[in-house]
């Protein structure tokens, strides 16, 4: 009986924690969703525009758009800072293994879990400056992008992907990847009609040298926003089910406790009655 009581107490404690985490996730999620709605039009439009440019014939003049033989791939992997978000972190890593396993890969992790995961597995880490997905801001993504495009230009790697979690709805988030470099025709999912920019000033090369790092930064920022909201949504759902599990267990234990208490009382009464009869 004492044991049951102890378990009820400890589970009540756990329930309070999961409930609190759920509430925190909900309040942060509202902010994160706000951020998504603000910047989603920007990066969808940006991506479409980059696709258009990639499909146009002038793009061949910049090394950012030219295909090259892939020896090494670089991944920007966005995961969470903390666990307890259901399968959120695992799904991302599984997706990485499925799609990029066996390739020569270096990783720029965003989020503490991502850093830990790839460090433990002995992957080459490009930079560990961006370990916290919660604190990252637009300026940081520009720094990341500048660094990566420089590395790409100097030939440190030949492909750049961003692996993130797409926030479809509160209940569904899917891991996905976005090809950032080179921006060849294969990136556009839909068939774009060939558009030709008649005038590119000052010169296609210098324009692309400016636009591409900015564009990559914008897309990484978009991916960060999506991932962060996904993490919070996943945590909310996980904590919600943990709380309701805890409630179930508590109800079950309470029943057991009451039964045990009742049978103990019954036994005591029988003992007293039988004791008084023998006298």
């Amino acid at each position, binding site marked *: 009986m004492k044991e049951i009581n102890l378990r009820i107490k400890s589970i009540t404690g756990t329930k309070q924690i999961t409930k609190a985490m759920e509430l925190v996730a909900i309040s942060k999620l509202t902010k994160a969703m706000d951020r998504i709605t603000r910047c989603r039009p*920007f990066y969808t*439009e940006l991506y479409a525009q980059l696709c258009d440019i990639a499909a146009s014939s002038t793009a061949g003049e910049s090394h950012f758009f030219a295909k090259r033989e892939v020896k090494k791939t670089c991944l920007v992997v966005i995961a969470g800072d903390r666990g307890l978000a259901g399968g959120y972190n695992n799904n991302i890593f599984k997706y990485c293994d499925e799609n990029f396993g066996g390739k020569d890969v270096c990783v720029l992790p965003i989020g503490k879990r991502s850093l830990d995961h790839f460090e433990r597995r002995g992957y080459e880490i490009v930079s560990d400056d961006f370990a916290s997905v919660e604190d990252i801001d*637009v300026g940081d993504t520009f720094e990341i992008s500048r660094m990566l495009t420089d590395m790409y230009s100097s030939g440190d790697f030949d492909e750049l992907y961003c692996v993130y979690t797409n926030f479809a709805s509160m209940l569904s988030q899917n891991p996905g990847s976005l090809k950032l470099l080179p921006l060849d025709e294969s990136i556009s999912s839909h068939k774009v009609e060939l558009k030709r920019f*008649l*005038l590119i000033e000052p010169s296609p090369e210098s324009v692309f040298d400016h636009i591409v790092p*900015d564009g990559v930064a*914008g897309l990484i920022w978009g991916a960060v926003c999506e991932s962060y909201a996904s993490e919070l949504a996943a945590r909310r759902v996980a904590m919600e089910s943990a709380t309701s599990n805890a409630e179930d267990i508590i109800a079950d234990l309470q029943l057991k406790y009451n039964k045990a208490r009742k049978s103990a009382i019954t036994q005591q009464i029988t003992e007293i009655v039988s004791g008084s009869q023998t006298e």
Partner: protein
Amino acid sequence: MSSFKLKIMSPDGIFYDGDAYQLSLRSVDGEVSILAGHIPYLTAVGIGECRLYEQSGEKPRRAACCGGMLSVDDEGVLLAPTTFEWAKDIDIERAKAAKTKAEQRLAEPTSSAKKGMAKLKLQRANLRISIAEKEKS
């Protein structure tokens, strides 16, 4: 009077989505103005003032606009800058603080990459201050 469709969007959200008469801004190469009927055009945006004329002959709406790209095609004009702030939204105190910070950075002996960043920051801060002051006067 002819107008064109203009969209201005940055990572911070959509700033303008509608018809415009003239858009003037600073590209990496110098000042450009877009009117209706421009040929397909693509350029990188520099650090400078952006002026938007919704109607011809009206006073322009001013904004600080840095980085990103400007593209013109048959469907309309898309301005996707890195940062974009309407003059009335500029926090002048913050810009002044950023200015002094960048100046301090420049005075310190640091690597050339960091110096370059500080210089850009100073440029942006100066731009914000000048636009905000213009708006007031």
